[in-house]
């Protein structure tokens, strides 16, 4: 089991979601984030002060997947989230020791597999 964390541009989120769903990846959690990387920084002014905004809006996507899904997920993410301009973001893959589905208490593979597909051993 792996946890794939992607940091992407907010304006690409909808494209990414559509691409993930098309690839049958249905379980995910997102949160709003702000990133700093190689992007050019915005400068704002407020009544005589000048302020450098070091952070740019990003969205973080966390997807728990079984091994076989790691590669497809990454390739879907890179494809759908890419614009080619600096600031497209990063993907981190972290090992997961256990996954539990709260509703049923099921663990690991069963926990991340969509319920309806579980019988098919996907």
């Amino acid at each position, binding site marked *: 089991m792996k946890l794939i964390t992607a940091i992407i541009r907010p304006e690409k*989120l*909808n494209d990414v*979601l559509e691409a993930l769903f098309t690839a049958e990846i249905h379980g995910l959690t997102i949160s*709003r984030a702000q990133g700093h990387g190689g992007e050019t920084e915005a400068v704002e002014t407020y009544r005589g002060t000048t302020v450098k905004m070091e952070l740019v809006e990003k*969205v973080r996507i966390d997807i728990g997947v079984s091994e076989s899904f790691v590669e497809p997920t990454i390739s879907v993410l890179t494809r759908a989230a890419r*614009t080619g301009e600096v600031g497209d973001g990063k993907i981190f893959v972290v090992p997961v020791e256990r996954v539990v589905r709260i509703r049923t208490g099921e663990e690991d593979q069963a926990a991340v597999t969509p319920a309806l597909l579980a019988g098919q051993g996907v």
Partner: protein
Amino acid sequence: MEVADPLAVEAADTAWLIVACAMVLLMTPALAFFYGGLVRSKNALNTMMMSFAALGTVVVAWAILGYSLAFAPGNAWLGGLEFAFLRGVGLEPQGSIPHLLFMAFQGTFAIITAALISGAIAERMRFGAYLLFINLWMLAVYAPVCHWVWGDGWLARLGALDFAGGTVVHVNAGMAAIVAAMVLGPRRDYGRQALLPHNVPFVLLGAGLLWFGWFGFNAGSALAADATAALAFVNTLLAPAAALAAWMFLDRLSTRKMTAVGAATGIVVGLVAITPAAGFVGPMSALAIGALAAIPSYFAIMKRSKTRLDDSLEVAAAHGLGGMTGAVLTGIFATAAWGGTDGLVAGNWKQAAMQVVAVLAVMAFSGVMSFALLKAVNLVLPLRVSSREEGTGLDVPMHGEEAYTHGEGALLLIPSAAKTTQRSAPAAAHEPLEAGA
């Protein structure tokens, strides 16, 4: 002041009443913000829409039927149908303003009274049932009580004083609120979770605009731009100020913090309390009424939150109890010197008694009728949303919207035929788009 022809429209009075009426109208959006800020964000639109919808439907119902029931010649209990569909209500003078303007001014009172009740059942009532209920309530409860007090009904004949609606508006709505809160039952999280206001600045905005509008409410009730209007105006400045100061003081004493929600509530309670007295008492009495009225409402709110009566936004404590206190204090502080009938302080205890009678009569009528109407509505449309909808919040299931969105993860559903075309032709925009953007 020049002596006015009793049968003429006076320009100055018309100017003032137009403005006053616009100010009263603004109170309903103001209430939407006062109430809307107090609920959780998932119910913000539903709560606001309960006020805004009253602006639509109640006005129409008032023009068609309500005004006639309240003000057309009738008996001691109810007006007739002579003015239904505004027949015969034109630009001829009613007092010194056009009759139609008087109708509109009274109409704005009907709207806000109906909308007030929504605070008691916020975050759990079905929207359709609410709409049906408040319109029936306006016709069957508000219009009669309005007739009793201002339409030459039995309370007017008895001599009960109510300058701008302490009993007609506030006691009336407050009683309906208690009944509605009881019939609907508490919110599912009530008493188990902290149900905190999602936007206190909105509450303050609402309170500020309510105060502004209330000047039209009270001083406009003089129905002329005369000294009585000026008195009612000044009292509407002084009483809420005193109530606000008293509330902050009580808050400080009992919790060591002067809360902003408390300040907003204090303003409203002061406004409610001076409403029946505004044109009948002097300015020092107005200060006293404001400060005194803060006390019962303050402690009622402290206690209420420990009970199972989930009057969610404290309509009964602020409006019902505030209106009662105000109505009774009117009977105490009113004086002929300032344009009222003498009250208790001026030696006439009968006036105070009459005030109590009026309050009790309105409470009884409003309580029984509101209960009956709610039960009746429930037969047609269930009153309460499902527990699941309550969990999600009412905005999405009732209104198909959220108050605040970021648009992320919100996928546009494109009618399938159009979809392919549009998708492949985003370049219809004037500029070339960023790669993949």
